[in-house]
């Protein structure tokens, strides 16, 4: 510990690193299968996605090593600066960005490379949030602190929404778990869960009076049961009012704000419409791919859906199809298990910190990774609207791999210093 060179690798959380390497490797093999091009049979050919992904992995691992060589305090001190730069990039992308697939999310760096500031924003937001909550007088239970913390999260969300990139925007909502861990009232979580349920119900049920009616009935029963307890009655009443307001908001949002393609995606997931040739095509083909895997899968490079390219975007957003089809239920559960193990490991890492900074940051990392996994996998099996966000470490793409590596290895670096002095 006195010898920084020795502590560099001594305190590194090897379990997290091994999971990381496993996921990268699984990712590469699945991209190889999904993007296989018989014209370039070599696995290292730079014309192909798997060839490029190999380079990205090497770059990412190099980056990881560099991060481990950095000073922790350096990272902590730079948090506001990184956040500011990210904010500028997010603004810049709206002006000079390249439009790819309807989203103005990319800044071209020349030489075929391009940067996606929203990927970086996840990292910088976690970092600044950690830095802020680390402050001595900051208590999330206080309104002022809560508002500032919420502001740190909402500001990049608003900028990304302007691109508009709904997927990346939603990722930030996962950070509510961080706030919860730091003392935010559980009502927020309950309310969020309630709102999601109401959202689905409102859109599924034609006449929203059918949703409001039972809701009012339940509220009245609860209020009658606890009529002595004024606090319960007022809370329930307040909640009821919010729920009803929310239902009308959802209706308004759905009917007047959402764009047709976004509505269509939601409709398909909720089973309101089935459009297997048009907007529902991806999800349907993706479900077919995964479903055809059965228990043990069709075998590496033998999935027909994968080989004959029935699922669009299969090496990026729909990479989980390849896992499901070629490695079956066993493979899919293994991958999900690795992710669960990783996020639980990160929670364990978080809770062994002495510094609030690292803990908050760790929860941020866990929330972001977890949200990505749930939304991505949920999308491929059709229980979540198709939102284009990558599967961490597995999906093809340099931007995504590098930013997740950054996210994770900064944590591992901070964690390796957990016994040392905290400089924030």
């Amino acid at each position: 510990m006195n010898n920084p060179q020795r502590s560099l690798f001594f305190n590194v959380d090897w379990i997290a690193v091994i999971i990381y390497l496993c996921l990268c490797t699984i990712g590469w093999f699945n991209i190889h299968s999904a993007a296989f091009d018989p014209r370039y049979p070599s696995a290292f050919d730079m014309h192909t996605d798997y060839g490029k992904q190999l380079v990205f992995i090497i770059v990412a691992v190099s980056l990881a090593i560099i991060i481990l060589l950095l000073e922790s305090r350096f990272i902590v001190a730079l948090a506001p600066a990184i956040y500011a730069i990210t904010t500028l990039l997010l603004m810049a992308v709206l002006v000079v960005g390249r439009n790819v697939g309807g989203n103005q999310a990319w800044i071209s760096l020349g030489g075929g490379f391009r940067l996606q500031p929203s990927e970086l924003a996840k990292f910088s937001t976690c970092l600044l949030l950690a830095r802020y909550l680390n402050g001595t007088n900051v208590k999330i239970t206080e309104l002022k602190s809560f508002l500032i913390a919420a502001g740190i999260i909402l500001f990049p969300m608003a900028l990304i929404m302007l691109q508009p990139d709904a997927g990346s925007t939603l990722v930030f909502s996962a950070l509510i778990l961080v706030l919860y861990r730091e003392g935010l009232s559980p009502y927020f979580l309950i309310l969020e869960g309630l709102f999601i349920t109401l959202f689905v119900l409102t859109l599924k049920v034609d006449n929203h009076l059918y949703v409001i009616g039972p809701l009012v009935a339940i509220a009245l029963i609860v209020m009658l049961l606890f009529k002595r307890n004024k606090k319960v009655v007022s809370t329930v009443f307040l909640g009821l009012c919010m729920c009803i307001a929310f239902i009308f908001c959802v209706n308004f949002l759905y009917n007047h704000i959402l764009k047709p393609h976004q509505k269509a995606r939601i409709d398909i997931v909720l089973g309101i419409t089935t459009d297997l040739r048009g907007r529902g095509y991806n999800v349907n083909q993706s479900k077919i791919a995964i479903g055809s895997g059965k228990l043990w899968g069709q075998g590496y490079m033998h999935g027909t859906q994968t080989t004959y390219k029935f699922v669009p975007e299969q090496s990026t957003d729909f990479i989980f199809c390849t896992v499901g089809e070629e490695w079956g239920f066993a493979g899919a559960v293994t991958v999900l298990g690795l992710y669960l193990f990783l996020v639980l490991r990160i929670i364990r890492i978080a809770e062994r910190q002495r510094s609030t900074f690292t803990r908050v940051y760790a929860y941020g990392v866990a929330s972001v990774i977890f949200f990505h996994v749930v939304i991505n996998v949920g999308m491929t099996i059709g229980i979540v609207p198709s939102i284009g966000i990558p599967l961490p470490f597995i999906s093809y793409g340099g931007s995504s791999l590098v930013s997740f590596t950054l996210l994770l290895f900064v944590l591992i670096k901070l964690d390796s210093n957990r016994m040392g002095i905290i400089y924030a």
Partner: protein
Amino acid sequence: MNSFFVRRYIIAGIFTTIILLLVAKLFYIQIIDDHYRLYATKNVLRPIKQYPARGPILDRNGKILVQNEAFYDIMVTPKEVKPFDTLEFCKLLGITKDEFDDRFQKAIKYSPSLPSIFEKQLSAETFASLQERLSEFTGFFPTTRYLRTYPDSTAAQFLGYIGEVTDRDIKRSNGRYQPGDYIGVSGVEKAYEDVLRGQVGVKYTVVNSHGKMMGSYENGAFDTVASPGERLKSSLDLRIQKLGEELMKGKVGSIVAIEPSTGEILAFVSSPTYDPNLLVGRERGNNAARMYKDPYSPLLIRPIQAYYPPGSSFKPLNALIALQEGLITPQTSYYCTGAYKGGLPRCDEPHGQSDLARAIAVSCNTYFASVFEKLMNVNGARNIDTTFVDWRKKVSRFSVGQRLGIDLPNEGKGFMPTAALYNKTFGVGHWRSNSILSLAIGQGELEITPLQMANIECTIANHGFYYTPHLIKAIGDTKITKAEYTQRNYVGIDGQYFEPVINGMQQVVESGTARSSQIPGIIMCGKTGTAQNPHGKNHSIFVAFAPRDNPKIAIAVVVENGGQGAWYAAPIASYIVEKYLTDTIKRPMDEFNRIKNANLMPDPTFYYSQIKKEAARDSIRKAKADSLRKLPAKKSVSTKSKKNNTLAYLTTEPGRRRNNE
């Protein structure tokens, strides 16, 4: 500090629960639900039908009537097309630049990455010159398809044609046919569809998400091979079929020739005819539409669908029935003054005293009117309705007014009047033998098909029985041995009564009405007929069989508006008989050419007026480009108008006769 420490478990719990939810859903779609495997297989497997070659059809001597010939479609996959010399390509295909652009745009519109047809059905010769250059034009490639070809362009109505299956065909076939398949629509192609079709094979091909072929599935382990259709040997004799079509050029009518000893049809001419090659290939739609509009209805199968009054050719039949009844003997004679009882029907000249044979030879109307009167009044003049029913039954045994059951679809019955019809026309009990005297000479309401005429001659040639006429001798290498084709159909006339009638028929050719149609060295027995009809000249009819002993061919010829039977029908029949029996025509060619070159096509204006009426009734059907497929097999306008005409007979002639009484 960490007062919220326990919340780590809540968060971990949320993570775990949600992941387990995903696992549960995965378990459902991967393990429990079996549909997805099926869908995935369906996604990539394309069963490609392997069409078998349709069976060829031969004539009785093994000459080819219809077979399959390879044609080449030029396909294009727009995405794979690389820049090339468009002008050169257009020149090779013989199209203009505009046509090229037009077609190319169409192909792109269909699909940029799937092949579509660019140029259809190039012949082998055209393709040969293109083939070696085709590799220069990336994205264009040929596919082979087989089409029906008719080397002699003959027997169109007999062979019929094929067309794409209709929705109804598909529904009725229990999955045997699918859209785009071909099926026999008429003629032998339809009647023997089951054997001609062959067995469709399936080749499973793997396709990618763009429908592009990626190779065979499991190295073809599940593929089935297409087996070609059977070769049909028909009973038709190409020599006389072609001769018949040549002689009938410029005339409306039919020729049917049958081998009496087997019932095999030797010639089946329907005129005007068409080149069956026109109903194949690129111009099929246009040609079909034109034929459909043609006032002379070339698509009508006249030998089995056109109805004609048999005229005098019907007389031997009445004679046979009267002989069988014992009402006359061969020696029974009547005196002809030129008209029956001084009224109708008339004869062309007074024939004086005739016995049966002479009456047949000179076709004496008076004689046969007398015989018919005897037949009708055998139970007393008042009981004519029951007598008529009895007579009708006897005539019907010759299959007059009935389908013979030939192995062709849409055979017509002809028309044999019933007692009920006369009761309706004249009132019950108000008609006598004189009211229906036209039947004595094959006129009036009676209408039969040329096939039925020929069949009656078979019966006479066989002395009292016929075999069901049929077209096909053998399927593949096995001779057809259907029971119904080898079974004798007796008509209820004893053999002994045929000799006197045949004697008369021999005299017809030797010294009677058809004496100019004698064939040197062959004894032909025949009977002329001159069928009256209201729109234009009489129909020329001749029925015959030859040789007299051990007959080899029975024939019926109808030439519409050809005048007397001896003018056209008899010589045409004699040429065909001569050709069939001796393989040559030794008589002077002047007469032959006169017949061949005669143009007896009726004035089309009459036909056009009928067509217009038809069109007004069903303008939609007419508008269809490929109307051929929808053309119902029914009587043509010409025969339909004849039907109306018989009603005119009913209303006018009997009244006149009554005045005569």
